[in-house]
């Protein structure tokens, strides 16, 4: 069996309950989106882990490059003024 015969890979995202985001849980193989959703139901929600499923073909996901992680995310590191604790205010000021 050559690998070119295998079904495409899909990434599976599950919303565990109302009010929460869909979260990545894993992947699986399926011929199309419909089958991917059906398989995801059986593989990832056997114990009521979800109320909604998203699937997306893995080839359609673009990811940031971990090799340039520092250049990508370091610029946010020294901007402490984006956090509320940066500001020096009198103790008398409650609930702000």
């Amino acid at each position, binding site marked *: *069996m*050559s*690998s070119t*015969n*295998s*079904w495409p*890979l899909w990434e599976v995202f599950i919303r565990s309950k109302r009010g929460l985001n869909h979260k990545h849980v*894993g*992947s*699986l*193989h399926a*011929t*199309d989106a*419909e*089958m991917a959703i059906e398989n995801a139901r*059986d*593989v990832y929600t*056997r*114990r009521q882990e979800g109320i909604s499923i998203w699937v997306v073909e893995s080839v359609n996901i673009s*990811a940031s*490059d*971990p*090799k340039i992680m520092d250049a990508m995310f370091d610029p946010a590191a020294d901007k402490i003024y984006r956090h509320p604790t940066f500001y020096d205010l009198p103790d008398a000021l409650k609930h702000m």
Partner: protein
Amino acid sequence: MTTLDFETQFFARINKDEKIEPKDWMPEKYRKTLIRQMAQHAHSEIVGMLPEANYISRAPSLKRKAALLAKIQDEAGHGLYLYCAAETLGAERDNLMDELHTGKAKYSSIFNYPTLNWADMGAIGWLVDGAAILNQVPLCKCSFGPYARAMVRVCKEESFHQRQGFEILLALCNGTVEQKQMAQDSINRWWWPSMMMFGPSDSESTNSEYSMKTKIKRFSNDELRQRFVDASKPQADILGLTLPDPLLKYNEATKHWDYGQIDWDEFNNVVQGNGPCNKIRVKARKDAWDNGKWVRDAATAYSEKQRQRKLETKQLA
């Protein structure tokens, strides 16, 4: 950065107990070790369905049948989580299947023993899943992210497997004399193969050192085996069954149960393919794959047709 820099960064991460993710730089040996281990683990889950599958239609009640069916379905799920974790490192599913079918890839030797009667469903759940849990719990903290995450899911599901097995044995032990004998006979046959599930003793284990260094593995084979003995002995007492080891004895000094010699010749023999069921197991997997080909082909053809149809309706609109 040079390879050396990457390697330093990699080990710095490992030592800080940070996870390694699939797209991170990693030493080739780490990647290979993980693919081999995850594939082997996945195959064990899938082949592990076979000895129990035989009893779905022979379960003594609807309750037992539903539980056994759910357990076996979980094992299929475990296999799938693990194959998908191996694929994050570039392994191809079809190649993994191929390696199982050609005997190139190994799976846990325990599944090469036959299931002779219903009591074996109890012994497998209690001892085999019990041993698997002890192996798998530390893997939830394994250094490779996808493997660790798959193990968290697996461990959540395993605990019912062991409990349903124990309950099967408990029912037999509270039953007739013959039923209790059945349970004892089953434990006699499954105890030592379960002890072997932790792999060769530390002095003989070839892959252990690197796996410990890269935190794929957190405890040695012998440490985990000792935990298994210590946990199982009091459980056997609750059942009123005797573990088939005349040398089993509580050691006041170490606070552990000392146990007898494992028959490593038997272990090696089974690993090398000469266990009682190696050939039937691989054949069953291969037949399932080959006989399922028309289903896979039909599914591919069906979704191709659907795709075409969608395209046509779009053009018409």
